[in-house]
C-alpha cells in the first residue's frame, strides 16, 4: 500500500505544483479525458473496423476509409453463426442465474456478517478457499458431476454452478459489515422480524453495493465463456460467448490453414453487437448505485 502517497491524492495530476485549489475541475477533467481516450480508443477502433472489408482490417489496420464502408462482416456473421439464439440463451441464463446470485449471496452474507453460529468460521473459510481456486480446475470435476446428474446440455447446468460464487458472498459480507449494529437492534426493538430486518433495514442501506453487485454479476455472467463452452455442446444452448469463442477458434488456435481475414471481420462484428446490450444494461443500472442513496438512509 506504500504506493499511495499523499501528493498523488490531489486531483490535479496535470498541474501538480500550482493552482491546486483554484482550478481543480480542469485538472480533474484533463485526467479523466485522458483516461477516457485510453479506455475508449481501442474499442472505437474495433467497432469501426467491423465496418471495413475483412481483408482491409488486417492489411491496413489503422486507417478508415469511409468509401469502403461495408456491412458485409455483419451480414456474414448473422448468416454464419447463431447469434440470435446466443442472445436468447444468454438472457435466460442471466435472468435465472443473476436472480439466484442477487438473492442468495446478500442473504447468506448478512448471516455471516451479523450473526454468530457454530461452524460459521469454517463455512466462511471454505468460501475463501473456493474464491482462491482457479475456475478452470473445477471444470473437469463439475463436468463429471453434471454427467452423473444427467445435466449435460441443460439450462440448469448453465445456471446453477457458479450461481452463488464466493466472490459475491465475500463482497456482500464486507458491505453488510459496515451497517451499524445499532440500526438492527433498533429495528428489533420496533418488533421487526429477522428477515424483515434484512429486507427493510439492511437492503435499503446497502443498495449501492447491491447495484454494484448486480452490475458485476450481469457482466460476469454475460462474459463467462469457460464453463458454457464446456457444458453447452449443442447449438441449442450456446450462449453469446460460446458463439464468439466458436468463431474465434481460428484465431486463438494457430491460424493453421484458417480463413483468418474473414473470421476476424465477423469476430469484430459479433463483438460490436455483443457490446451493445451490456452497455444499455450498465447505463440503466449505474444510476442506481452511484447517486448517493446511502447517506440519507443511514441518517434516517
Amino acid at each position: 500500500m506504500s504506493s499511495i502517497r499523499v501528493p498523488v491524492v490531489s486531483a490535479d495530476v496535470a498541474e501538480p505544483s500550482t493552482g491546486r485549489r483554484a482550478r481543480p475541475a480542469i485538472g480533474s477533467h484533463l485526467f479523466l479525458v485522458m483516461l477516457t481516450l485510453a479506455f475508449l480508443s481501442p474499442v472505437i477502433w474495433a467497432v469501426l473496423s467491423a465496418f471495413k472489408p475483412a481483408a482491409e482490417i488486417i492489411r491496413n489496420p489503422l486507417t478508415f476509409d469511409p468509401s469502403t464502408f461495408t456491412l458485409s462482416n455483419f451480414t456474414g456473421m448473422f448468416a454464419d453463426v447463431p447469434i440470435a439464439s446466443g442472445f436468447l440463451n444468454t438472457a435466460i441464463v442471466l435472468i435465472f442465474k443473476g436472480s439466484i446470485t442477487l438473492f442468495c449471496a446478500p442473504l447468506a452474507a448478512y448471516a455471516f456478517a451479523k450473526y454468530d453460529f457454530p461452524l460459521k468460521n469454517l463455512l466462511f473459510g471454505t468460501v475463501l478457499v473456493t474464491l482462491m481456486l482457479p475456475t478452470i480446475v473445477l471444470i473437469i470435476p463439475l463436468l463429471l458431476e453434471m454427467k452423473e446428474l444427467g445435466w449435460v446440455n441443460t439450462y440448469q447446468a448453465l445456471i446453477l454452478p457458479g450461481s452463488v460464487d464466493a466472490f459475491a458472498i465475500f463482497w456482500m459480507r464486507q458491505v453488510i459489515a459496515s451497517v451499524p449494529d445499532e440500526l438492527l437492534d433498533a429495528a428489533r426493538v420496533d418488533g421487526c422480524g429477522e428477515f424483515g430486518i434484512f429486507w427493510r433495514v439492511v437492503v435499503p442501506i446497502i443498495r449501492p453495493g447491491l447495484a454494484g453487485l448486480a452490475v458485476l454479476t450481469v457482466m460476469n455472467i454475460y462474459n463467462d465463456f469457460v464453463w458454457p463452452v464446456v457444458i453447452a455442446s449443442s447449438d441449442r444452448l450456446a450462449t453469446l460467448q460460446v458463439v464468439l469463442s466458436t468463431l474465434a477458434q481460428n484465431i486463438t488456435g494457430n491460424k493453421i490453414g484458417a480463413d483468418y481475414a474473414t473470421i476476424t471481420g465477423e469476430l469484430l462484428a459479433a463483438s460490436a453487437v455483443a457490446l451493445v446490450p451490456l452497455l444499455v444494461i450498465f447505463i440503466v443500472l449505474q444510476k442506481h448505485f452511484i447517486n448517493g442513496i446511502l447517506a440519507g438512509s443511514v441518517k434516517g
Partner: protein
Amino acid sequence: MHLPQLRARRHNPAASHRPARWGLVAAAAALAIGLAGCGPSIGAGTSTADANKLQPTTASNPKGQITIWDRSGDLYKVFGAAIKDFNKKYPNIKVNHQAVDINAKLQNTLITGTDVPDGVFLDDSLVAGYSSYLWDLSDALKPYTADIAQQKIDVNSINGGLYGVPFDLDPGLLFYNKTALESVGIDATKIKTYDDLIAAAKQYKLAKPDSAPIHLEQSGYLGQLQLEMYASQLGTSMTDKKGKLRIDSPQYTQILSWLDTVQKGGLGTRAEYLSPSDIGALDSSNEVFYPWAIWFDFAPQQQLTTTKGDWRAMELPAWTNGGARSGAMGGSSFVLPKAGKNSKLALLFYEFLMFDKKGYTAVYGPNSVYPNGLNTSIPSYLPAANASKPLFGPVKEMGNQDLWKTAVTAGKQIPGGVPTPKWWAGAVDYLGANIQKMLDGTLTPRQVIDQSSKDIQTNLIDRQ
C-alpha cells in the same frame, strides 16, 4: 502442508479477538482432507481390441441422424455445402452439422461421454492423444488405404490401428516473389537445394541491402510446426514409431544449423506468420522467400496488396541433391468417437466426402464458398489428387499459376511419417521456445537439441 503453522496462529492470543481466519482456513482444509475419499469415482471400463474396430454398415438403405462437428469458418461452409450432395446419395441420413470450438470441447465431451458427436474434424497432431476414445478404422478403410498418401496413414496409425479418416494433405512449398527476384536477375526455379536458397538470398540482399529475404517464423508453435515440415522432408520427426524422442539426430542438426546460418547472415525476416510486421515485409519485397505449407496462399489471395500478383509457389528445395522436395505441415482428419450413436452412418458420410468422386469434387471443386475451388490444401486420397485433373482452378492472385499441379506433384514426394505424440503442442514451450532463442543468438543448434531433449523427456514424455 502449512497446517502446523496455521494451528499455532489460532492460539495466538493477540489474534483471538479477530475472527480466527488462519484457524478457519486450517479447519476447512482439514475437513476437505477428511472428506477427500468421497469424490466421484474416476476411471473407465476396458474393452477388447476387436470391439474397437468399426465395421462398415451392411444396410441397403441406411437411415438415421448423425452429428458432425467441424471447425467454424470456410471449411464449415464448404463441408456444409457438400452435405447436399451426400443427401442425394443417402436421402435418409440426416446430417446435424455443427460449428464447434473443438479444442475446447472435445476432451470434455469424451470424458463425460454425453452427447458425443458421430464424427469430428481434428488436427492430425491431436489424433493420437484421443485414440483411446476413437474407433479403429483399419477394417472399415481397408478398401482405400493403399490409395491414401502414406504420410496421412502414418500420422493416424497407432499400434496397428487407424484412428482417423485422412482428409487433406498440406505439402510444404517454397513461395517466392517472382517479380522482385527477377528484377535483380534471380530465377527462383533454379533453386534445387537449401544451399541454393541461401545463395539466392545472399544475391538478393546484395542488390537490396535492406532486405531480409527468407521468412523465419517467430511464433513458437508455428516455428515448431515448420521445423517438423523440414524434418518430414528428411523422413524424420520428433519421435519414432514407438514414441521415443529422436531430435538428437544429424537431420535436426542440419535443419537447425541452416536456420542459424540464415539468421546469422542477416538473411531472415523474423516475424509471426501474417502478423502486420510480416505482411509489411512481404509487401515491401523485403521478404521474398516463404517456405511454408500450401495454405500460405491465403496471403496473396486475401492480405497482400502491393505484391499481390507477384507471388508464385514451387517445390521446396531439397536438403541434399536429389532429396525429397516437400514435407507435410499441418493437416487434418476426421475421427469417429466410439461413444457416437451412429458411427457407421458417419463413416458413410466421410467415405462419400473423401473417396467418392462427387464428394471430393464438392469439397475441393468450385462451390458457393470458393467459386474457384478450395485451394488451401489438396486431397490425401491419391485418385482425387491427379496432377492433370485439377479440382481447383488456377490462382488469379498468383499470376494464374496452376497451384494444383505444383502442390500435387510436391505432395507425392512427402515421405511417410509417424503418429504425432500427444504432447506435441506442449513441446512448443521447450523446442519451440529454444528455436526462437537460437534465432535470437543466445543458443547454438547443439544447445537447442540438448536442452529440448532433456526438457521434453522430463516434463512431457515421463509424465504421460
